[in-house]
């Protein structure tokens, strides 16, 4: 078991290596000469050359890549071209809203999608199943910012039940924090719910045809016990897998959702960095998001043996 954990952790190293290489190349092939930009308009070619040497920009690609990776492993993501702040500081300032949004969305989406998917599988072929699956197709088709604007218009502007935009730190109270996150989380969660509900239904349908379900039914176990104890447990692996893969959707969606709901998080930072071509910040954010994504999926990979003891390594 321990050997398996170690093997899985080691297996993420080449993956992160490819990500790092891609992210580094981003700055390497980015248009514009950083040395010339830092030197300014008045600089002579000699000045530019001096800055280039002091920044080690004259070194070969692989050496610079190695040095850059070394820096990152020491927690240094570089300095923003635009604000001159360390990228790590900028990310730390914006971290809480995005983490809050993700966690609330994740909890809410799983809490809705799994029971709905189970219901669809139980009532397979009926109008309940059909309408749930029709909603899932809609969830896939309506982009997150469209749902966001629709929700904000109905529940914030017309009905005035919830705040329109903005974010309140959790330190200012749980309810104000939560109140601001409801609409963004619902908007962001729609695609995710559609995805999880579909896989839950498919996975449950397969399990419900197994012999041991018929045995359980013959023993007189109630419908609820069969669905949630016997079937869902055995259908869990694909569901948990797609929850992990779907994190990528959440990350991409957060960039947009934060723009729609004016949440000052990492998504907004990404958009601002793109518009200003602030490459060190873009690099840091892509690296961070990818790392988080890889970690979540690693955790899920390790969870398989807990969920399904038949899986042995």
């Amino acid at each position, binding site marked *: 078991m321990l050997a398996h954990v170690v093997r899985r952790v080691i297996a993420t190293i080449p*993956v992160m290596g490819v*990500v790092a290489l891609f992210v580094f190349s981003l700055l390497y092939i980015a248009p514009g000469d950083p040395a010339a930009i830092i030197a300014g308009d008045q600089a002579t070619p000699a000045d530019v050359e001096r800055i280039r040497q002091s920044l080690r920009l004259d070194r070969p690609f692989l050496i610079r890549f190695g040095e850059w990776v070394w820096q990152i492993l020491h927690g240094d993501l570089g300095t923003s071209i635009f604000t001159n702040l360390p990228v790590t500081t900028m990310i730390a300032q914006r971290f809480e809203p995005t983490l809050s949004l993700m966690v609330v969305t994740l909890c809410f989406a799983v809490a809705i999608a799994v029971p709905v998917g189970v219901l669809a599988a139980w009532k397979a072929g009926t109008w309940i199943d059909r309408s749930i699956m029709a909603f899932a197709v809609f969830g896939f088709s309506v*982009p997150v910012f469209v749902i966001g604007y629709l929700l904000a218009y109905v529940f914030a502007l017309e009905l005035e039940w919830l705040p329109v935009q903005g974010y309140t730190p959790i330190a200012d109270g749980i309810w104000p924090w939560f109140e601001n996150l409801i609409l963004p989380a619902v908007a962001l969660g729609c695609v995710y719910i559609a995805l999880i509900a579909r896989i839950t239904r498919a996975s449950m349908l397969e399990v419900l045809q197994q012999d041991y379900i018929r045995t359980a039914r013959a023993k007189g176990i109630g419908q609820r016990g069969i669905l949630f104890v016997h079937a869902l447990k055995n259908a869990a692996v694909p569901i948990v897998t797609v929850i992990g893969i779907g994190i990528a959707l959440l990350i991409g969606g957060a960039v947009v959702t934060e723009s729609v709901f004016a949440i000052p998080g990492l998504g907004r930072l990404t958009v601002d960095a793109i518009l200003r071509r602030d490459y060190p910040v873009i690099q840091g954010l892509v690296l961070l998001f990818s790392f988080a*994504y890889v970690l979540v999926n690693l955790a899920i990979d390790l969870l398989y043996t807990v969920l399904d003891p038949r899986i042995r390594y």
Partner: protein
Amino acid sequence: MTAAGAAVAPDLPDLLPAVKPRHGILGFLRRHPTIAAGGALLIAMLMMAVFAPYLGTVDPTALAPARRLRPPSADHWFGTDMLGRDLYSRVIYGARVSLIVGFAVATLASVFGLAIGLFGGFIRWADALLMRVMDGLMSIPPILLAVALMALTRGSVGNVIVAITIAEIPRVSRLVRGVVLSLREQPYVDAAVAAGTRTPMIILRHILPNTLAPMTVQATYICASAMIVEAILSFIGAGTPPTIPSWGNIMAEGRALWQVKPYIVFFPAVFLSLTVLAVNLLGDGLRDALDPRLAKRL
């Protein structure tokens, strides 16, 4: 004789009406209503994009500062935006960008994904390397990958297509490789090898045709997701240049005013959602029609 003597079997009650097999395209569409609905909606959008100049539109980029921010009326069906441009015309022309990006990305990602997947599925040494690279690219969330690539270049429709294609290729090549790996264990491939068929011929004649069904289904999903990503890129200002009327751009322009003039965001949003819905319905229908085993599972 028959009438008087022998008993005549009574007519069977009409419990089971005879199954009338329907052939041809109409029968196919009747059996797969999602393909019919999605296809019809998509064709309508395509026609709208192609015949945009003849649908009562005016120049979608013509400025008219005197007629700024008019609500929908008989003159301007969808109203006008903050520069006085006719929103109806802009939305109709916007279909062109979405559809071009969707189809181009679906085609390009399929072609490159097929090539990489076939190559990796058959050539061992390349497989390990290619799949490590694909795993790495797959661990960058696709929208983020496309956004990062767009940061490198000017905004243009071509660059948007390339950026989204690169973000989609890893998933396609993974899918194709998976299909190839299971196909090469099939007895008919062994038979072909035993008969002395060379590898390129095996790929071309025995493997490729069998990957086309799952590829077609996958391509429709890529098309749908590419249209959404294009709108997202334009919406956050990293997509098609603002001079081109695309649905994402119109929504980006309406963003500042959405609380007072919601119709600017509303109309492109509805058209975008309908188009993506059409492609998704088509994809679901094709999946059921082409791959009954997969259909049962999904």
